[in-house]
């Protein structure tokens, strides 16, 4: 294949006013993504890492402890996370997580309580004023995250006559679907603390991390009695109103308690809308005299329920914004760039082929394969330019504006999503263009665009329903899997990879099937089209 003519066709592909407008849009999209990133960053507390911490500050018998567990978005323990408790800007306790993610640090409770008591303006002990807002600082690698909280309620005098009960809501959960999981018990031989959080991941999987311990005069220890849980779920379709389902309630079941004091329940709870309800046996919640200062900080960069398509994950507000900005922008860019594939295939193949304008070129030392491949490759290169422009605009603007840029892996995912989706659509539109007249070609290409880019999900939900699927989860899984049969698969797959790289979630698409689908969409239509193209007249008979 001679490169000169390919470069000419590339120039003709790129240096069209319409294509230049699309390139300008690609630049705008890149800059727009940067803007959304900036909005996300301005919210503060952003760390592009997958760190959660759930814990409590508990005092009993004159000794106080910072106790908690660190885990990633899939509930796996994180080792080596340094957790610092700050009061009034001063570190009063710190510890690093062990292999089980467990963090235990004894701190000077008297000092703590004294600090509390000396807060200016503290009223009488019976109704104390606000504690200085405790904050947690999480440090690991690039994570240096400080999360503050808002005092939620006061209760009980402490052993030194000062308030020692406080809960801080540092959660950034704001969808209101966090279950009622916090329970505590005072008194008895032990103080019992149990907290949990629900991690919602892709593929309809819902998991929970439950953390608990008991505290007596000897210090914190594992809860030896079973804690029961109950998973409830509701099936409410946001896609199709007639799919609203019931609210089955499952029986309470025992939760195993590992020896290290943490109880991590990790497994499917049955659906996106599951809630986890914990029940502490009555015998554990008796007695008096326990003191519990619950920090309850879920100091997480992932402290957010996030929904995009069929994917739930656990991410901070900022990360969620970043992830939504990235995927949203990519999808907008794809919607526009795919139109470019339809347009360029018309200009470089449908129109000249049907009007006989390719004949003269073919009379030269050129085979039909050369001609077919040349023009395909030229458009392919044009799309590479567009996708690269998009990524470059994003990287340059975010570097200049935010002193931040996507790492090479994430940038590659963005490029691959944009480029391969365009290539898949190019293969389809170019193949149609090589055998139909321009009018018919445009009708077929626009129909393909409408079906594959605009109404695919709706069609698949309707198809799933017509096939007898009734629950939201079944139909959403059906629709999710159907993307393998859509040339948008490359975009869907690489956007999911991007989300995974940012949010630490698992993708729902199988890499093998996705790869096979991408290869099929890119390669099969042109091969079939060429088999026809090599025989047909290149002029109107």
């Amino acid at each position, binding site marked *: 294949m*001679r*490169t*000169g*003519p390919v*470069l*000419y*066709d590339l120039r*003709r592909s790129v240096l069209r006013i319409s294509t230049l407008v699309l390139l300008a849009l690609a630049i705008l999209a890149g800059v727009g993504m940067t803007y959304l990133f900036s909005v996300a960053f301005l919210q503060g507390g952003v760390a592009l890492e997958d760190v959660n911490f759930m814990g409590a500050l508990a005092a009993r018998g004159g000794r106080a402890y910072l106790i908690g567990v660190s885990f990633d978005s899939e509930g796996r323990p994180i080792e080596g996370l340094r957790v610092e408790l700050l009061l009034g800007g001063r570190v009063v306790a710190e510890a690093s997580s062990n292999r089980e993610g467990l963090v235990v640090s004894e701190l000077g409770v008297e000092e703590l309580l004294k600090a509390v008591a000396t807060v200016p303006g503290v009223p009488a002990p019976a109704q104390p004023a606000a504690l200085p807002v405790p904050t947690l600082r999480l440090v690991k690698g690039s994570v240096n995250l400080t999360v503050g909280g808002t005092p939620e309620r006061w209760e009980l005098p402490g052993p030194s006559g000062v308030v020692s009960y406080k809960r801080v809501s540092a959660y950034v959960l704001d969808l209101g679907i966090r279950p009622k999981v916090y329970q505590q018990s005072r008194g008895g031989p032990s103080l019992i603390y149990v907290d949990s959080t629900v991690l919602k991941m892709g593929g309809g999987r819902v998991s929970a991390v439950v953390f608990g311990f008991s505290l007596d005069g000897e210090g914190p220890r594992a809860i030896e009695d079973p804690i029961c849980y109950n998973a409830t779920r509701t099936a409410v379709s946001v896609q199709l109103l007639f799919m609203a389902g019931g609210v089955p309630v499952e029986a309470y079941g025992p939760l195993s308690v590992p020896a290290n004091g943490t109880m991590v329940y990790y497994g499917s709870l049955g659906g996106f809308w599951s809630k986890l309800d914990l029940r502490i046996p009555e015998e554990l919640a008796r007695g008096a005299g326990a003191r519990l200062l619950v920090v309850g900080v879920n100091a997480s960069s992932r402290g957010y329920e996030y929904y995009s398509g069929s994917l739930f994950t656990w991410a901070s507000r900022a990360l969620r914004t970043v992830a939504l900005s990235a995927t949203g922008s990519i999808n907008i860019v794809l919607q526009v760039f795919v139109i470019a594939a339809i347009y360029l295939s018309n*200009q470089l193949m449908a129109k*000249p082929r049907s*009007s*006989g*304008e390719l*004949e*003269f*070129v*073919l*009379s*030269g*030392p*050129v*085979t039909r394969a*050369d001609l077919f491949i040349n023009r395909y490759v030229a458009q392919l290169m044009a799309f590479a330019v567009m996708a690269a422009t998009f990524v470059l605009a994003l990287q340059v603007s975010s570097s200049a504006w935010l002193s931040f840029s996507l790492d090479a892996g994430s940038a590659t995912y963005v490029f691959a999503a944009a480029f391969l989706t365009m290539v898949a659509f190019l293969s389809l539109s170019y193949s149609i263009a090589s055998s139909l007249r321009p009018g018919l070609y445009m009708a077929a290409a626009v129909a393909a665009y409408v079906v594959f880019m605009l109404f695919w999900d709706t069609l698949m939900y309707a198809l799933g329903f017509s096939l007898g699927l009734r629950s939201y989860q079944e139909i959403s899984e059906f629709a999710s899997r159907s993307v393998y049969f859509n040339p948008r698969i490359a975009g869907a797959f690489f956007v999911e990879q991007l989300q995974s790289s940012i949010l630490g979630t698992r993708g729902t698409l199988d890499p093998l099937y996705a790869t096979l689908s991408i290869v099929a969409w890119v390669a099969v239509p042109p091969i079939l089209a060429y088999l026809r193209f*090599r*025989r047909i*007249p*290149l*002029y109107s*008979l």
Partner: protein
Amino acid sequence: MILVEGVSKSFGSLRALDNVSFEVRNGEVVGFVGLNGAGKTTTIRIAVGVLPPDSGDVLIDGYSVRRDKRRASERVGWLPEIPMFEKDFRALDYFAYVAGFYGFSRSEALELGRELMTRFGLGDAMRRKLGEYSLGMRKRFALALSMVNDPPNFIFDEVLNGLDPQGIAFFRQLATEFRREGKAVLFSSHILSEVEGVADRVVFIHRGRIVANMSIDEIRSRVGRDQRALEEFFFKLVGVER
């Protein structure tokens, strides 16, 4: 040399060519004459490699247009009746684009394009878009393109149609020049008298079959030089009442 060997082609149920064979030797101008729809253009399209035959082959200097298309096409220039080019191209850019397939670099192609387009009377129109070219200009431009590598074989397909007397004289003169240079030239027309002045030999085609292949001297010996007698001979040959 152009050798057409047993070429057949059908379009659906229409048998456009049926075992067509003839040759054009080097230094010879062969007229290719037939009524409209006889199969001249289909034969030529197959000969220049833009249309695949159902069977048979065309050899250009021994290279098959089916099996060795690139080499065969390098050795033959083609001037179609109505040259069609991509209209949004500027002429000189299109020249460089086509020349790229012959292995010319962009700068070489642009230099050659300027030279050939000036030679064929398009010096002032090099920067214009091809969509703005008249039929005569397009034919001259096609000629310039066909001369990119000065091929040893040349095919004119109804090239005199739609031209003014000056244009007709130009292309007839060109065919004669090519013969002098030793090129094999196939010159098609549906009017026998158009080729009579330039051809050494005439191949007659009718309804997709070769019905006669005789030298111009042989034809003249039968009917003399009278134009009307030439046409009568042609119609009698193809069995058509005038």
